[in-house]
Every structure is written in C-alpha cells, then in structure tokens.
C-alpha cells in the first residue's frame, strides 16, 4: 500500500471534514466530479452538502469563503489551477489578508493552489504564485514538497485561524509516493533538513526539493556532501534553520521554480546576507525559472526551469569558488 501526494491532500481534507463540522469545501467541479485533479474524489458523497461545485467565479468563491469564515466556518476553496487565482486575487490579498489586522476577527480559510509546471501545460496552467502571496501581510503560504507534508500541512492549514495559501505542486500529484500517511508532523513554520551535508546548503521547496536532492546525490561521487533544506512554508520563512545550516557549510544556493525577480530565492538570500553575512565563505547563488511566461513546448519548458543537472552544475561552481 502506498499513498500519493494527491491522495494525501484528499485524505487530509477528508479528515478535516470528518473531525470538524465547520469545515466545508467550495470550488469548481469539486463536488460529484471530485475536482479537476480528483483531490476531492468521493468527498461530496461522503459529506453531503459540504463539498459543493461553485460557479466559474474565483472572486466570489474566495469572497464567500471569507464571509463564511467570519461566521465561524472553516472553508477550503480549490482554485482549478493556481494561475486562475489572479481573478480571485483581490479577495485574497485585500479581503482575507486584512481581516484580522483590521477587525481582530481571524480568517481561517484555505485556498488550494495547484501550482507549478508540468509537461505541455503552458503559460496559464504552470504558474508558481507563492512569492506574490508571500509579499502580502496577513497570509500564511505553505509549499509542501512531500507526501507527509501535503497531508499534515493541509490538516494544519485548516486548523490554524489564518488564511493559508496552500501551494500544492501538480508535478508531485501522482508520482510522489509514501508508504503511509504520517501520524506526527513537524510544526508548520519550521524548515526541514531533508538531507544533511557539510559542504554547501541548498535551500529549496516544493518540486524543486526533488531536483535538488537528486543534484546532491549526483555530487556524492565527487566527494561533496550537500545539505538540502526544504522550506515547507515560504511565509513564515524559517530563517533560523537556514542560518544554522549556512553556519555549518559556509555556502548557499537557493533553488526555486518561480520567476527570478523578488521571489523566495531573493528573500532567502537577502535574509542570509543581512543576518548571516559573516557565515558565508563565498557569494551565495540562486537558481530560478527564466523571466518569461512558462513555455508550452517540452524542450523550452525543460530549459525554462532549474533541473537536477543544472543545480548540480551550479553547485560545482559554488563549491569551487
């Protein structure tokens, strides 16, 4: 028996619906159909009236969730693709994200964003919007990279009283598997050392964790021990864990799939440069996607985002600097 990343998200939502009568799910095709990716498969039948198909209205979907949250409900809303959250953007960043600061009423909503590139998905079904949301005060931005985190962080996302942007990576949905769902979990907000090392630190998250782990593995034959940190949440960003790692390794590469200007990578490097300047033995490096829309053609796409081999090459540069 094994469980996929997607099944973990489904299972967590099922558990949340079971455990807490305040939870409901609202989104396009999430009902009988079970969602575009089947993240809500069978839930409508299991929880009648609590898993509902929404009209094609992202703004209203998020708005409804905020109103329901005010009244004490704990809605989970699904965007069919992260890219479509741009049309629900205002309700997320100005309505949900400001509610607590303005009124002291918390806003416990979860906005699920099926994120990131996949083969042939093109400019509008591939985006990684975590940096856009993390820039705004008032949001928690989760970017689980493992099956275990997909499960436990979704439970936590529903449990906490604040709006959570839950960035699930579509590339991990079906292929990433674990033996079973976890019973315990690391606290949300703490990064995880996914692989311990000595010579350099790679800070990454979401699908890029797996490319980075592969790169770290590739460097073993050259005698390098690379530490890989999985951020897990990009807001809050666990600066302490990063700094502690850089203190050990002296070298930092940050890897992300989003666009280069001002993303997670810039924030991580900026924190290390400002708060851990003396820890660095060499200039930090970063790898992002290129600064264009995500291309459709598989060859362009492969050249648009970092891959294990590019990461490995960059690490070699970093290590010999």
């Amino acid at each position, binding site marked *: 028996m094994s469980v996929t990343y997607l099944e973990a998200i489904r299972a967590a939502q099922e558990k949340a619906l079971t455990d807490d009568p305040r939870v*409901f799910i609202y989104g396009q095709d999430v009902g009988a159909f079970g969602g575009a990716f089947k993240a809500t498969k069978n839930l409508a039948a299991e929880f009648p*009236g*609590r898993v509902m198909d*929404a*009209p094609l*209205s*992202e*703004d*209203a*979907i*998020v*708005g*409804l*969730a*905020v*109103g*329901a*949250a*005010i*009244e*004490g*409900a704990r*809605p989970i809303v699904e965007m069919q693709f992260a890219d479509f959250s741009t*049309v629900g953007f*205002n*309700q997320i960043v*100005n*309505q949900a*994200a*400001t*509610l*607590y*600061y*303005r*009124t002291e*009423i*918390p806003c416990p909503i979860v906005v699920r964003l099926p994120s990131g590139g996949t083969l042939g998905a093109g400019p509008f079904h591939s985006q990684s919007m975590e940096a856009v949301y993390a820039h705004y*005060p*008032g*949001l*928690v931005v989760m970017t689980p990279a493992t099956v275990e985190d997909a499960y436990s962080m979704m439970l936590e996302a529903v449990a*906490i*009283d*604040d*709006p959570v942007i839950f960035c699930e990576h579509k590339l991990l949905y079906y292929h990433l598997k674990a033996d079973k769902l976890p019973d315990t979990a690391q*606290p*949300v*907000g703490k990064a995880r050392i996914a692989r311990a090392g000595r010579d350099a630190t790679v800070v990454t998250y979401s699908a890029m964790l797996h490319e980075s782990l592969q790169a770290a593995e590739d460097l073993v034959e050259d005698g390098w021990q690379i530490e890989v940190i999985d951020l897990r*949440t990009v*807001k*809050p*960003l666990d*600066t302490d864990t990063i700094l502690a790692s850089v203190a050990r390794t002296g070298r930092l590469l940050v890897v992300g799939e989003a666009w280069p200007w001002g993303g997670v990578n810039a924030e991580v490097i900026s*924190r290390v440069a400002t708060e851990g300047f003396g820890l660095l033995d060499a200039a930090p490096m970063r790898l992002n996607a290129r600064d264009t829309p995500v291309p459709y053609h598989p060859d362009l796409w492969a050249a648009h985002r970092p891959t294990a081999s590019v990461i490995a090459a960059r690490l070699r540069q970093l290590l010999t600097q």
Partner: protein
Amino acid sequence: MVTAVKETTVVRNDLDSALLVRAYRVMLLARATEDKLASLYRAGMIKGGVFLGKGQEALSTASSIFLQKGDIFGPLIRDQAGRLAFGDTVLDTFRTYLGSAKGPMRGRDGNIHRGRPREGYYAMISHLGALVPVVAGGLYARRLRGETGVVGVTSIGDGGTSTGAFHEGINLAAVEHLPLVVVIANNQYAYSTPNSRQFACADLLDKAAGYGIAGFKCDGTDPVASLETLQLAVQAAREGNGPQMVVATLLRLVGHGEHDDAGYVDAALRQANVGRDCLEVGATQLIGSDLATAEEIAAWTKEAQAEVEAALNIAQREKGPDPADEDWRAISTERLVDGHHDLEDE
C-alpha cells in the same frame, strides 16, 4: 425562483407608525453626525477623506431597519444611516474617523471602513463590489449551520454594478438561493461619472432577471417608499425566496468626498424629483400623516445634534493607538508570524 418585478407605491398604512418615526429619527441622527464630520473635515481635524451619504439617509435606513439580531448587514460608503439603524453608534463613528484606540478599528482603519463583524456588521474594504460575495458567504455559513430565517443586506452604487465582484457575487447568491438583499443606490453618478458612461441598460433593475432574482424599485428620496420596498424585499428573502435586488433612484447631495464640490452634477437633476432631500420629504410625510409636528421634528433634530456633540466630546478625548504598544502582526497565530521585521529594533 422569483423573477417578478414589483413596483411599489406608497401605501402608508402598511408600515407601523412607530417604525416610521424611528426611521426618521435615525435619518436625523445620521445627518447630524455627517454634518459634524463635514465641519471636522473643514477644520482639518480628520486625516484622510470624509465620505458622506447626505440625501441617501432614507434608503440607507430602510436597508437595515428591518434586520434583526443575527442578521447580516454589509454597508457601503453612503450608509451612515443604515449603520446607525443596525446598531452602530455615533461614538464609534467619531472614534473611527478620529482614530481612537477604543473604536472598533483601533486606528488601524478609518472612516467608512468600520464594522463589528462578530455582530453581523461587516466592515467593507474599499474595493467596490467586493462585499457582495462576503455577505453571501456569511449567509452560506449560517445556512450550513442550520440557521434559518437569517437575512443579509448589502448595498452598492450605480458605479459598483459595473464591477466583476458585484456580478459574480450576485450570481453566486442566486445559484445558492441565499437570503441576500442587494440594495442598489442609483445616485446617478459614480464619483464624477454619470450613468451614461456606466451602463447602457434602460433600468438597472433589468439586471435582476439576468440573475434570476426578484427585483424591486423605489424612489430613494421617499422614506415611506424606501421603507415599504425594503420591508417587502427583506421579508421575501427571509421567507426563502432567494436574493432580492432593490434599485432606488436618488441623488447624493454632497460631493463624492468632502474634498469634492460635485460641480459635475447636472443642475437639472438637482431640481428634479431625484434631487429632493429625503429628510424634507420625510418631514412632510410625518406631518401629513399626523405622526409628528414640525416642532417635534425640530426637537428631535436638536436631540440628535446634542447626541452628536456628546459623542464627539468623548471621542475627541480618547487617545489614538500607541505605535510602541502595537504588536504589528497581520495574522492571529503568533507562532506563524514571519519574524523578519525591519523596523523592529528602531
């Protein structure tokens, strides 16, 4: 699904006379409050804008006066009167404008952006239309919890009907058959923009059928007509007939904000029926129905002004928030606050 469009006429006896008097006194209180806000603004005592609802008190009062405890009210810019009718206070009004730490927004937000969401009194953000789905969501949650007979009212202007949020919100409410009343105050302008540059339908009420919801229209300068119409609409929503759209015609008798002299308003409109002052119309109605004398109305006005003065006196003595005491966090879960505050150690 109800799609009938009801044009209401003045049937004074349908409303109980105590309600009429109560509504009128709310209108007076709102006017007195806003008159004071205007003079505070002119005296430079309010930072930021002041946005008043002069001329819209009748409609605004009618919007919330039929609501009960447990109902939801999502007012917009011109709803000082409706806010008071729903339970907001003159004191909290001044507190918010003056930034008192004791006000519901504690100096964090100001002017019309106030509310007490836990009491069903939602606090608008500036983005027009954005409140429609939020009120719908509140109703949705109530229904999910098994509560029945709850109604939500929200209002919007002619300009706000052009927003995607308005459209998506009403359509969603219609699909969900929620007890939502949307009051459209067609005051002929959105800031300086006349209706001719805002929509091309013959009547805004023509939109109701497009959502499959019931529609009402009324003369928003007429307190009795406004009350009667909203009574019907709120009742229809409460009885489970789904969303109700009310379109009222009127004119804002002040600028968009107090910085604005509204020079763009067509003089003919000011002279027309639509430009009447609902307070004057209401006075005539009360006197004509022997519900009040001119002297009584004058006395009520004085009382309102005194209440306003008293509230202002309190609010003006209250302190604003102390930045040093602020915890400067935008989320409630303390352990998840992002620990990177650049201004922290200054």
